[in-house]
Protein backbone atom coordinates (compact mmCIF):
# COMPACT_ATOMS: atom_id res chain seq x y z
CA UNK A 1 0.00 0.00 0.00
CA UNK A 2 1.45 3.33 -1.09
CA UNK A 3 0.02 6.79 -0.59
CA UNK A 4 0.76 10.34 -1.65
CA UNK A 5 -0.20 13.56 0.15
CA UNK A 6 -0.53 16.59 -2.12
CA UNK A 7 1.01 19.80 -0.78
CA UNK A 8 -0.19 23.20 -2.01
CA UNK A 9 1.14 26.56 -0.91
CA UNK A 10 -1.06 27.20 2.11
CA UNK A 11 -1.74 23.56 3.00
CA UNK A 12 -1.39 23.20 6.76
CA UNK A 13 -2.68 19.71 7.53
CA UNK A 14 -0.36 17.90 5.14
CA UNK A 15 2.02 16.79 7.89
CA UNK A 16 -0.71 15.73 10.30
CA UNK A 17 -2.24 13.66 7.52
CA UNK A 18 1.15 12.13 6.73
CA UNK A 19 1.62 11.17 10.39
CA UNK A 20 -1.86 9.62 10.57
CA UNK A 21 -1.35 7.66 7.34
CA UNK A 22 2.14 6.51 8.35
CA UNK A 23 0.81 5.32 11.70
CA UNK A 24 -1.67 3.01 9.96
CA UNK A 25 0.51 2.11 6.96
CA UNK A 26 3.78 1.50 8.72
CA UNK A 27 5.59 3.54 6.07
CA UNK A 28 5.80 7.16 5.03
CA UNK A 29 3.50 8.47 2.29
CA UNK A 30 5.13 10.52 -0.46
CA UNK A 31 4.59 14.28 -0.21
CA UNK A 32 3.99 15.73 -3.66
CA UNK A 33 4.31 19.45 -4.39
CA UNK A 34 1.57 21.20 -6.36
CA UNK A 35 3.95 22.15 -9.18
CA UNK A 36 4.92 18.54 -9.82
CA UNK A 37 3.42 17.00 -12.90
CA UNK A 38 3.80 13.32 -12.04
CA UNK A 39 2.67 11.17 -9.15
CA UNK A 40 4.48 8.09 -7.91
CA UNK A 41 2.69 4.76 -8.31
CA UNK A 42 0.22 4.98 -5.42
CA UNK A 43 -3.01 3.33 -4.23
CA UNK A 44 -4.26 6.40 -2.39
CA UNK A 45 -4.02 10.14 -2.96
CA UNK A 46 -4.80 12.35 0.03
CA UNK A 47 -5.59 16.03 -0.44
CA UNK A 48 -5.08 17.79 2.90
CA UNK A 49 -6.67 20.69 4.72
CA UNK A 50 -5.38 24.23 4.83
CA UNK A 51 -5.80 27.42 2.88
CA UNK A 52 -4.35 26.53 -0.51
CA UNK A 53 -3.48 29.67 -2.50
CA UNK A 54 -4.88 31.76 0.35
CA UNK A 55 -8.45 30.74 -0.60
CA UNK A 56 -8.21 33.28 -3.45
CA UNK A 57 -11.29 33.51 -5.71
CA UNK A 58 -13.05 30.59 -3.93
CA UNK A 59 -11.71 28.03 -1.45
CA UNK A 60 -10.00 25.31 -3.46
CA UNK A 61 -10.55 26.99 -6.82
CA UNK A 62 -6.94 27.80 -7.61
CA UNK A 63 -5.56 24.54 -6.23
CA UNK A 64 -8.05 22.56 -8.34
CA UNK A 65 -6.26 23.82 -11.46
CA UNK A 66 -2.67 23.54 -10.27
CA UNK A 67 -0.34 21.32 -12.32
CA UNK A 68 -0.47 18.22 -10.06
CA UNK A 69 -4.28 18.12 -10.17
CA UNK A 70 -4.28 17.00 -13.82
CA UNK A 71 -2.40 13.94 -12.65
CA UNK A 72 -4.68 13.46 -9.61
CA UNK A 73 -7.69 13.49 -11.94
CA UNK A 74 -6.00 11.04 -14.30
CA UNK A 75 -5.22 8.67 -11.41
CA UNK A 76 -8.75 9.04 -10.02
CA UNK A 77 -10.21 8.16 -13.43
CA UNK A 78 -8.04 5.04 -13.37
CA UNK A 79 -9.67 4.06 -10.05
CA UNK A 80 -7.02 5.19 -7.57
CA UNK A 81 -8.63 6.11 -4.23
CA UNK A 82 -8.76 9.81 -3.35
CA UNK A 83 -9.45 11.30 0.09
CA UNK A 84 -10.01 15.04 0.42
CA UNK A 85 -10.21 16.53 3.90
CA UNK A 86 -11.46 20.06 4.58
CA UNK A 87 -9.69 22.25 2.00
CA UNK A 88 -9.01 18.96 0.19
CA UNK A 89 -12.79 18.44 -0.07
CA UNK A 90 -13.16 21.97 -1.46
CA UNK A 91 -10.40 21.25 -3.99
CA UNK A 92 -12.08 18.01 -5.13
CA UNK A 93 -15.45 19.73 -5.69
CA UNK A 94 -13.77 22.57 -7.60
CA UNK A 95 -11.88 19.99 -9.68
CA UNK A 96 -15.15 18.27 -10.56
CA UNK A 97 -14.22 14.99 -8.86
CA UNK A 98 -17.06 15.40 -6.36
CA UNK A 99 -20.44 17.11 -6.82
CA UNK A 100 -21.68 20.20 -5.00
CA UNK A 101 -19.85 23.09 -3.44
CA UNK A 102 -18.68 24.26 0.00
CA UNK A 103 -20.05 27.71 0.67
CA UNK A 104 -19.33 30.22 3.46
CA UNK A 105 -20.59 28.92 6.84
CA UNK A 106 -24.15 30.03 7.41
CA UNK A 107 -23.27 31.94 10.60
CA UNK A 108 -20.32 33.54 8.71
CA UNK A 109 -17.91 32.45 11.45
CA UNK A 110 -14.86 30.27 11.30
CA UNK A 111 -15.85 27.19 13.28
CA UNK A 112 -13.19 25.21 15.12
CA UNK A 113 -14.47 22.52 17.48
CA UNK A 114 -15.12 18.82 17.88
CA UNK A 115 -18.36 17.65 16.29
CA UNK A 116 -20.19 14.34 16.19
CA UNK A 117 -20.70 12.51 12.94
CA UNK A 118 -23.02 9.66 12.09
CA UNK A 119 -21.46 7.07 9.81
CA UNK A 120 -24.17 6.68 7.18
CA UNK A 121 -22.19 4.47 4.83
CA UNK A 122 -19.75 1.90 6.12
CA UNK A 123 -19.55 -0.18 2.95
CA UNK A 124 -16.69 1.93 1.61
CA UNK A 125 -12.95 1.52 1.82
CA UNK A 126 -12.84 4.68 3.93
CA UNK A 127 -15.36 3.64 6.54
CA UNK A 128 -15.43 -0.16 6.77
CA UNK A 129 -13.80 0.10 10.20
CA UNK A 130 -16.93 1.78 11.58
CA UNK A 131 -20.30 0.18 12.28
CA UNK A 132 -23.38 1.46 10.39
CA UNK A 133 -24.81 4.45 12.22
CA UNK A 134 -21.80 4.68 14.55
CA UNK A 135 -21.39 8.08 16.21
CA UNK A 136 -17.82 9.37 16.07
CA UNK A 137 -16.20 12.53 17.41
CA UNK A 138 -14.02 14.38 14.89
CA UNK A 139 -12.89 18.04 14.84
CA UNK A 140 -13.89 20.61 12.24
CA UNK A 141 -11.95 23.81 11.50
CA UNK A 142 -13.24 25.80 8.55
CA UNK A 143 -14.89 28.95 7.28
CA UNK A 144 -16.34 27.45 4.11
CA UNK A 145 -17.93 24.13 4.98
CA UNK A 146 -21.56 24.80 4.16
CA UNK A 147 -22.27 22.00 1.67
CA UNK A 148 -24.72 22.89 -1.08
CA UNK A 149 -26.02 21.00 -4.08
CA UNK A 150 -29.18 21.55 -6.11
CA UNK A 151 -32.31 19.48 -5.41
CA UNK A 152 -31.68 16.98 -8.22
CA UNK A 153 -28.09 16.48 -7.15
CA UNK A 154 -29.16 16.03 -3.54
CA UNK A 155 -31.79 13.45 -4.51
CA UNK A 156 -29.17 11.57 -6.50
CA UNK A 157 -26.74 11.54 -3.53
CA UNK A 158 -29.50 10.17 -1.30
CA UNK A 159 -30.67 7.57 -3.84
CA UNK A 160 -27.17 6.33 -4.48
CA UNK A 161 -26.33 6.37 -0.75
CA UNK A 162 -23.34 8.60 -1.30
CA UNK A 163 -23.63 10.71 1.84
CA UNK A 164 -20.90 9.11 3.93
CA UNK A 165 -21.18 11.20 7.11
CA UNK A 166 -23.70 13.61 8.60
CA UNK A 167 -23.33 16.05 11.49
CA UNK A 168 -25.30 14.84 14.50
CA UNK A 169 -25.50 15.38 18.23
CA UNK A 170 -23.94 13.10 20.79
CA UNK A 171 -26.94 10.77 20.69
CA UNK A 172 -26.86 10.57 16.89
CA UNK A 173 -29.81 12.86 16.21
CA UNK A 174 -29.45 14.80 12.94
CA UNK A 175 -30.58 18.25 14.03
CA UNK A 176 -30.12 21.87 13.09
CA UNK A 177 -28.31 22.58 16.36
CA UNK A 178 -25.80 19.81 15.59
CA UNK A 179 -25.06 21.36 12.19
CA UNK A 180 -21.93 23.51 12.57
CA UNK A 181 -22.04 25.30 9.22
CA UNK A 182 -25.50 25.16 7.64
CA UNK A 183 -24.74 22.23 5.34
CA UNK A 184 -27.70 20.92 3.39
CA UNK A 185 -29.16 17.89 5.16
CA UNK A 186 -26.24 18.00 7.69
CA UNK A 187 -23.91 16.61 5.01
CA UNK A 188 -20.34 16.28 6.30
CA UNK A 189 -18.88 13.99 3.65
CA UNK A 190 -19.79 12.71 0.18
CA UNK A 191 -18.65 9.92 -2.11
CA UNK A 192 -18.29 9.91 -5.89
CA UNK A 193 -20.34 7.33 -7.86
CA UNK A 194 -17.47 4.81 -7.79
CA UNK A 195 -17.24 5.20 -3.99
CA UNK A 196 -13.46 5.47 -4.38
CA UNK A 197 -13.37 9.24 -3.81
CA UNK A 198 -14.42 10.72 -0.47
CA UNK A 199 -14.51 14.37 0.50
CA UNK A 200 -15.26 15.45 4.07
CA UNK A 201 -14.97 18.68 6.04
CA UNK A 202 -14.07 17.13 9.45
CA UNK A 203 -10.46 16.17 10.16
CA UNK A 204 -10.05 12.48 11.08
CA UNK A 205 -6.26 12.94 11.18
CA UNK A 206 -6.62 15.30 14.13
CA UNK A 207 -8.10 12.61 16.38
CA UNK A 208 -6.27 9.51 15.28
CA UNK A 209 -4.08 8.88 18.30
CA UNK A 210 -5.15 8.82 21.98
CA UNK A 211 -2.40 11.32 22.76
CA UNK A 212 -4.31 13.86 20.62
CA UNK A 213 -7.36 13.50 22.86
CA UNK A 214 -9.25 10.95 20.82
CA UNK A 215 -8.89 8.08 18.41
CA UNK A 216 -12.12 8.07 16.40
CA UNK A 217 -10.34 9.08 13.18
CA UNK A 218 -7.93 6.16 13.30
CA UNK A 219 -10.43 3.62 11.95
CA UNK A 220 -10.65 5.57 8.69
CA UNK A 221 -6.95 5.22 8.00
CA UNK A 222 -6.93 1.59 9.18
CA UNK A 223 -9.92 0.87 6.88
CA UNK A 224 -8.16 2.40 3.92
CA UNK A 225 -4.95 0.57 4.52
CA UNK A 226 -6.65 -2.80 4.94
CA UNK A 227 -8.79 -2.30 1.79
CA UNK A 228 -5.89 -1.15 -0.35
CA UNK A 229 -3.14 -3.48 0.86
Amino acid sequence: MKAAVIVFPGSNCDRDLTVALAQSMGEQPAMVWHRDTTLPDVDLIAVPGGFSYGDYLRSGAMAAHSPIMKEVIRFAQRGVAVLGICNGFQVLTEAGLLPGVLMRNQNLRFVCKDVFLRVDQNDTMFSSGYTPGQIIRIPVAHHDGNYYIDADGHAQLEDEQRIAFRYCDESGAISKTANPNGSLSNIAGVLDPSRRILGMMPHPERLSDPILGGNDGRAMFDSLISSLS
Partner: protein
Amino acid sequence: MKALVHITLKPGVLDPQGKAIENALTNFGFQGVNDVRQGKYIELDLPDSDPATAESTVKEMCERLLANTVIENYRVEIVDRA
Protein backbone atom coordinates in the same frame (compact mmCIF):
# COMPACT_ATOMS: atom_id res chain seq x y z
CA MET B 1 -10.41 45.42 -25.18
CA LYS B 2 -11.61 45.19 -21.60
CA ALA B 3 -13.94 42.64 -20.07
CA LEU B 4 -16.11 43.34 -17.05
CA VAL B 5 -17.31 40.19 -15.35
CA HIS B 6 -20.12 40.16 -12.82
CA ILE B 7 -20.48 36.98 -10.78
CA THR B 8 -23.63 36.58 -8.71
CA LEU B 9 -25.21 33.83 -6.67
CA LYS B 10 -27.98 31.95 -8.44
CA PRO B 11 -31.51 32.71 -7.26
CA GLY B 12 -32.47 30.37 -4.44
CA VAL B 13 -28.91 29.93 -3.16
CA LEU B 14 -28.76 31.28 0.39
CA ASP B 15 -26.43 34.23 0.82
CA PRO B 16 -25.62 34.67 4.52
CA GLN B 17 -23.20 37.52 3.74
CA GLY B 18 -25.90 39.40 1.83
CA LYS B 19 -28.24 38.82 4.77
CA ALA B 20 -25.68 40.22 7.23
CA ILE B 21 -25.20 43.31 5.02
CA GLU B 22 -28.97 43.73 4.83
CA ASN B 23 -29.25 43.60 8.65
CA ALA B 24 -26.41 46.10 9.03
CA LEU B 25 -28.04 48.52 6.57
CA THR B 26 -31.30 48.25 8.50
CA ASN B 27 -29.37 48.99 11.72
CA PHE B 28 -27.94 52.12 10.05
CA GLY B 29 -31.53 53.26 9.62
CA PHE B 30 -31.96 52.53 5.91
CA GLN B 31 -35.54 51.36 5.75
CA GLY B 32 -37.07 48.77 3.45
CA VAL B 33 -33.81 47.17 2.29
CA ASN B 34 -34.50 43.69 0.96
CA ASP B 35 -32.82 40.85 -0.91
CA VAL B 36 -29.21 42.01 -0.57
CA ARG B 37 -27.05 39.66 -2.60
CA GLN B 38 -23.27 39.89 -2.57
CA GLY B 39 -21.29 39.03 -5.68
CA LYS B 40 -17.90 39.50 -7.32
CA TYR B 41 -16.71 41.87 -9.99
CA ILE B 42 -13.62 41.09 -12.07
CA GLU B 43 -12.01 43.32 -14.71
CA LEU B 44 -9.49 42.11 -17.24
CA ASP B 45 -7.69 43.27 -20.36
CA LEU B 46 -7.69 41.14 -23.47
CA PRO B 47 -5.55 41.16 -26.59
CA ASP B 48 -8.53 40.45 -28.86
CA SER B 49 -9.80 43.18 -31.18
CA ASP B 50 -13.06 41.44 -32.01
CA PRO B 51 -15.70 41.84 -29.27
CA ALA B 52 -17.40 38.53 -30.13
CA THR B 53 -14.14 36.58 -29.80
CA ALA B 54 -13.34 38.39 -26.57
CA GLU B 55 -16.75 37.58 -25.17
CA SER B 56 -16.52 33.91 -25.98
CA THR B 57 -13.01 33.73 -24.45
CA VAL B 58 -14.18 35.35 -21.22
CA LYS B 59 -17.23 33.08 -21.06
CA GLU B 60 -14.91 30.11 -21.25
CA MET B 61 -12.82 31.64 -18.44
CA CYS B 62 -15.99 31.93 -16.37
CA GLU B 63 -17.00 28.32 -17.01
CA ARG B 64 -13.54 26.98 -16.20
CA LEU B 65 -12.38 29.18 -13.34
CA LEU B 66 -13.96 32.54 -12.58
CA ALA B 67 -17.39 31.25 -11.57
CA ASN B 68 -18.53 28.08 -9.88
CA THR B 69 -21.59 27.37 -11.98
CA VAL B 70 -23.03 25.06 -9.31
CA ILE B 71 -24.02 28.18 -7.35
CA GLU B 72 -23.06 31.19 -9.45
CA ASN B 73 -24.24 32.96 -12.59
CA TYR B 74 -21.98 35.27 -14.57
CA ARG B 75 -22.49 38.17 -16.93
CA VAL B 76 -19.78 39.39 -19.29
CA GLU B 77 -19.57 42.90 -20.65
CA ILE B 78 -16.98 43.76 -23.31
CA VAL B 79 -15.97 47.41 -23.54
CA ASP B 80 -13.61 49.05 -26.00
CA ARG B 81 -11.39 51.00 -23.69
CA ALA B 82 -7.74 51.87 -24.00
